[in-house]
């Protein structure tokens, strides 16, 4: 492979031809044998040289498919061009025009199914590493202390309440604040960030980055009230009566689903939410400096095949445990990102595929001793289009475990919908919102993120937030959002 210096020189001579020959730059990663024992971030990020080299691969399409593939419509060719030119801070400013959280999105977005899937280079070879470049621009500016001055439209005099400070809430708050509205964010937990703080582990998304982005939001003038449980204190109608012109509900999918099998209340069975919240938000990994009791698995079994399951299984590994994933379908049906599954495998997570837990075994002290599982085989496709797993009779076997982490999904958190009967919900408890405007059945009340879509991804929540912010601006001012 060419080194960055070689290419730099070549680039000066014959730009376009050599450009296509540059391979996609690999992401330097922490060695899996080392990282399985620490909570440091796995990918280490591009160096300046690598980033410029990778950026130079972009052919600057006239009709870029990548922008269409991005849920928040980032002007991808433009920011990449700036990186290629070494204008890293300008690249960040370009990103910031469309996304409040570039450092986060660059890390946790499934680019392979979004922007990068549309990249023209990907048709014949490998797409431009858009996500890695986005991350680079954000990290560069942060590390070098370049704090972009917030660009804001003139004040509109409108007040907006945002309930929840996860990806959807932050996006709405950021956009509306930039467009001149007064925004108050209500967060029930003690730190803002929602799933970015409690759910996604440190090794995938360092918490310092989330807090940095939150601070940027505050610099924009967004007021964040933590420890504030809307639904238990004010209800949504009360917020409107208190002088808010619009409300955005982004309370997420924070109600863990359990398996409903015997033994599930034994000590050592956790929802992935609890397991991850202890480790991430409560920083039990820094016990006893932080007071929250850590979970100390020796043999952890994680049930589920999504990104959350991978996060939990890899966290268990880092806490010094053997770590096994039990998933009832095959690898092809796993909803987790391929990269996450690959990372988990690399680190030594063991996968029991086509396996379904039927009961959790525990001892006289009510502590988990194992999971009794059943082998499955794939039958006809079900409603989701995935082949339905069918149990193989008599195939019971026991996976020994002292910790079982249930990561089979989350339902919408009921606290807000429960106390605002004016807002129509579906039979799954999600809030029904207009797919274009994200407005709920209650005028002036919008909703987005997992509370609308059910458990999904960070970027889809941000995409909905983006959509909602535009609609809310129109609702509040009767005009299109300003171009800043």
């Amino acid at each position, binding site marked *: 492979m060419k080194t960055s210096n070689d290419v730099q020189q070549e680039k000066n001579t014959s730009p376009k031809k050599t450009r296509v020959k540059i391979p996609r730059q690999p992401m330097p990663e922490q060695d899996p044998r080392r990282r399985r024992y620490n909570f440091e971030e796995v990918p280490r990020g591009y160096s300046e040289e690598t980033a410029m080299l990778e950026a130079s691969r972009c052919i600057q399409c006239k009709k870029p498919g990548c922008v269409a593939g991005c849920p928040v419509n980032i002007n991808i060719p433009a920011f990449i061009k700036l990186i290629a030119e070494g204008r890293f801070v300008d690249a960040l400013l370009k990103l910031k025009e469309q996304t409040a959280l570039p450092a986060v999105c660059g890390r946790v977005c499934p680019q392979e199914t979004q922007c990068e899937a549309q990249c023209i280079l990907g048709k014949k070879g490998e797409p431009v590493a858009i996500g890695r470049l986005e991350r680079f621009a954000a990290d560069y500016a942060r590390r070098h202390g370049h704090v972009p001055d917030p660009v804001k439209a003139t004040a509109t005099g409108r007040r907006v309440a945002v309930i929840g400070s996860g990806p959807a809430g932050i996006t709405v708050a950021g956009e509306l604040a930039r467009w001149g509205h007064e925004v108050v964010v209500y967060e029930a937990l003690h730190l803002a960030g929602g799933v970015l703080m409690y759910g996604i582990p440190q090794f995938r998304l360092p918490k310092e980055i989330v807090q940095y982005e939150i601070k940027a939001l505050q610099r924009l003038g967004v007021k964040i009230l933590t420890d504030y449980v809307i639904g238990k204190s004010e209800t949504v109608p009360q917020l409107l009566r208190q002088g808010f012109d619009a409300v955005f509900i982004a309370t997420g999918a924070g109600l863990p689903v359990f398996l409903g099998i015997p033994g599930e*209340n034994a000590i050592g069975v956790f929802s992935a939410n609890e397991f991850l919240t202890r480790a991430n938000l409560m920083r039990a990994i820094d016990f006893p400096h932080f007071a929250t*009791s850590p979970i100390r698995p020796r043999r952890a079994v994680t049930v589920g095949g999504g990104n959350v399951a991978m996060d939990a299984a890899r966290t268990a590994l880092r806490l010094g445990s053997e770590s096994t994933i039990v998933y009832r379908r095959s690898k092809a049906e796993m909803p987790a990102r391929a990269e996450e599954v690959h990372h988990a495998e690399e680190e030594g997570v063991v996968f029991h595929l086509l396996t379904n837990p039927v009961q959790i075994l525990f001892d006289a002290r009510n502590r988990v001793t194992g999971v009794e599982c059943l082998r499955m085989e794939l039958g006809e496709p079900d409603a989701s289009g995935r082949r339905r797993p069918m149990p193989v009779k008599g195939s019971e076997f026991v996976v020994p475990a002292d910790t079982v982490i249930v990561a089979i999904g989350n339902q919408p958190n009921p606290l807000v919908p429960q106390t605002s009967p004016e807002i129509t919900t579906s039979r799954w408890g999600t809030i029904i919102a207009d797919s274009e405007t994200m407005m709920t059945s209650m005028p002036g009340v919008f909703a987005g993120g997992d509370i609308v879509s059910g458990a999904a991804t960070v970027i889809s929540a941000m995409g909905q937030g983006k959509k909602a912010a535009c609609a809310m601006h129109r609702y509040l001012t009767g005009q299109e959002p300003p171009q800043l």
Partner: protein
Amino acid sequence: MGIVSLTINGRPVEVEAGTTVLEAARTAGINIPTICAHKDLNPYGSCRMCIVEIEGVRGYPTSCTTPVAPGMRVTTESERLATLRNRTLELMFSGHPNSCLVCLHREACEQYRPQAVKAARSTRCGFCANRDECDLRAMALRAGSKELDLPTLYGSYTLERNDPFMDRDYNLCVLCGRCWRICEKIHGQPAISIINRGKWARIGTAFSQSHLYSGCTFCGACIDICPTGTLTDRFARWHGKPDREIASTCLLCSEGCSIISQSKQGQLLANVMIGFDRTDSLCALGRFAYAQIVNTGLRLIRPMEREGEDLIPTDWEAALETAAARLLTAKKKTATVISETITREERFLYKELTRCLGGELFVLQSSENEDNAVAAALAAAVQKGDIQALIVNGALLPAAVVEQIPFVLAIDCLPSEISRLATVVLPAAILSETEGSFRTSSGVIKNIAAASVAPGYARPEWSILCDLGRAMKFDGFSFQTAAEVGDLISDDPAPEIFAGNPRHNVRELPLRFRGHDLVDIVPALDAFSPLHSVKAAQIEETADGGFPILEKKEIVPNMHFYKIHAPQVAGFAQPGQFVILMARETSERSPFTLVDWNKEEGWISLVIEEVGRSSRELASLQTGGRIAHVSGPLGMPLTIERKGTVLLGGGCYGIGAIYPLARALHQAGNRVICAIEASSSYLLYQQAELQEVCDELLVATKDGSAGVRGGVQEILSWVAGQEPIHQFIAIGCTFMMRMVTELSRTLKIPTLVALNPIMVDGTGMCGACRVSIDKTTRFACIDGPIFDGHGVDWDELASRRSAYARQEVEALSQQVDLNELVLRPAGESCGCGGH
């Protein structure tokens, strides 16, 4: 000295002249109860438990202070003596919390709670760290008395936590004087003594200063000789009774003091003295820091090998193979630098290994840091390229020297600059985890016994060195045990005498172990470092954020009342709801039931019992301070309806928690009876406030010192016999709620309980708080906390509440409240008794 013959209880006994009657009786196998007497202390005669009758002697002399005389006729058991002793015991107990001993439900409670609850002050045996080793309790249980005629006079002394290693709760002290007498015996001039007079008499330091400034050397003898839970080792305190004791030798300096290592389930809890003599005494490190060094979470636990910039975890075989190959390349250009704080066997093997390589061995004293004479000498050799490999077993050299050496093998227990620079890192088992022998600076060879299990993949150095030697195909490394190595050592020199005298001066403690700064491992040791820097805890504290505490007071021991400005809670709170608090940014999220609130003024009030680290952090906050986080109101409120007669039962924090329910139910037109229970009268609170919002207030205490003797269940069955109860609601500990719901079931009274499982977020997000109600899983935070008491799976709740018992003990024992270590130059009074 002649032999004296006497009779005790009619049995002829012959002992040497000068023996006390007590000793004579014990020689004859006759048991006389004692508290203040101790075999290693001079007779004192203060507790008066050991009284006997001696023919011809007036009154009831104490056998511990009465020497035998020829022909003496002693009676140790009589009705009169039994009465007097019981009276003495009662007097002693009137100044010592005793409600558990006389509680009607003691057996059931102890079965339910096999370990003592970690409270701040011990207001009863159930809250006492020393519960299983208390002489007083053992005596009372033997006496079998379930009645006490005298009221309990609780001392209300503040818990003393202002020194590095000990907690002192003088509310438990019975003034037996063992502590100051052993202090005097060992140190000549005692650091503690009886101060004040009459009923104010207590144990203390001169001018009530912190023990840091009292001349105390922290030998721990007073803790180990205390017959009650008054004096305790903060680290070992809540781990309970050790399951193993083994004689060994301290390795922290060349003095090599003899120790008894106490461990539980393979974990070292403490080292104690082998006896109670002057020569047996230990320094603060040997007594207190040892266990914390061994148990620190910082330990190296797996072998690692360098690949580029990173140290990659690997297995023993691979790491040893690399090390062997690299050492064989360097051969005589190998330097071995070791600390003397290892066993003789290990030292011998380091010497042998270095000899086989043809290299040079340097041994450093325990107190030396990385700037030492050896380092200076090595630096020159390194410069010249004479050293190609380094074997080092601690942070014993400056990084600048080490990074110039091509191959570095670190065999160590803790990470340091050196292990970060090393090529191969091998985790070593240390101190109580290894075995062998030790030659002290006075030349004596002492035994080292393994008392605890090494963490992770760490192994004793002798076995690592044997494998390394074998990997290099050297002869003479095929040992199976440390003892086999020991047999070969003949003329090893005694180490140099340790310069300081740490047993007599805490300022001369060797605050280094293998070159590592011990203050980093045992933060409490900072109190002894020359500058007493109080390394600030690296926590970003809420400066102006958080929730102001308008009022805070300890209303009864361990029970703290708070009035907090939290308008977003106060404006919406309803009876039965709770809040989640975090005292600091590093605290746990812990739920507490709301007691009262005022929407207009924006405050809420709470009653919090100090039972663990989180509530202790809250308890340390004062009026005018701030609580980092208050989140709420949370949970479903109680549905307030007109039911008729409602009985509300509250115990512990529940006395406060039933207040808003009583008020609302009373306002709704119910006849409200409040039944409150406490261990003893001095633990009752909020009676006036409750009186105002209920029709009848009934009180029960476990010791009968106020109201009915017993608990809420006694009141419930009495009231049920008087009038129909339409609704019963109980809030308190799970044991109490379980007991009362069992009774209310048989009485067929509809019962509600407010459950208290472990919670994290409190908004339904994590499911930690799930409870089984009528065999269905519910989340206490959003479906509760109030549930039908008759549907609760109490066993499940109790077990789930204990899920983190071990971590909770760890959190308390490793927590050092540096604020409490600050200098307190002036005490309260001179101790002469004047106030």
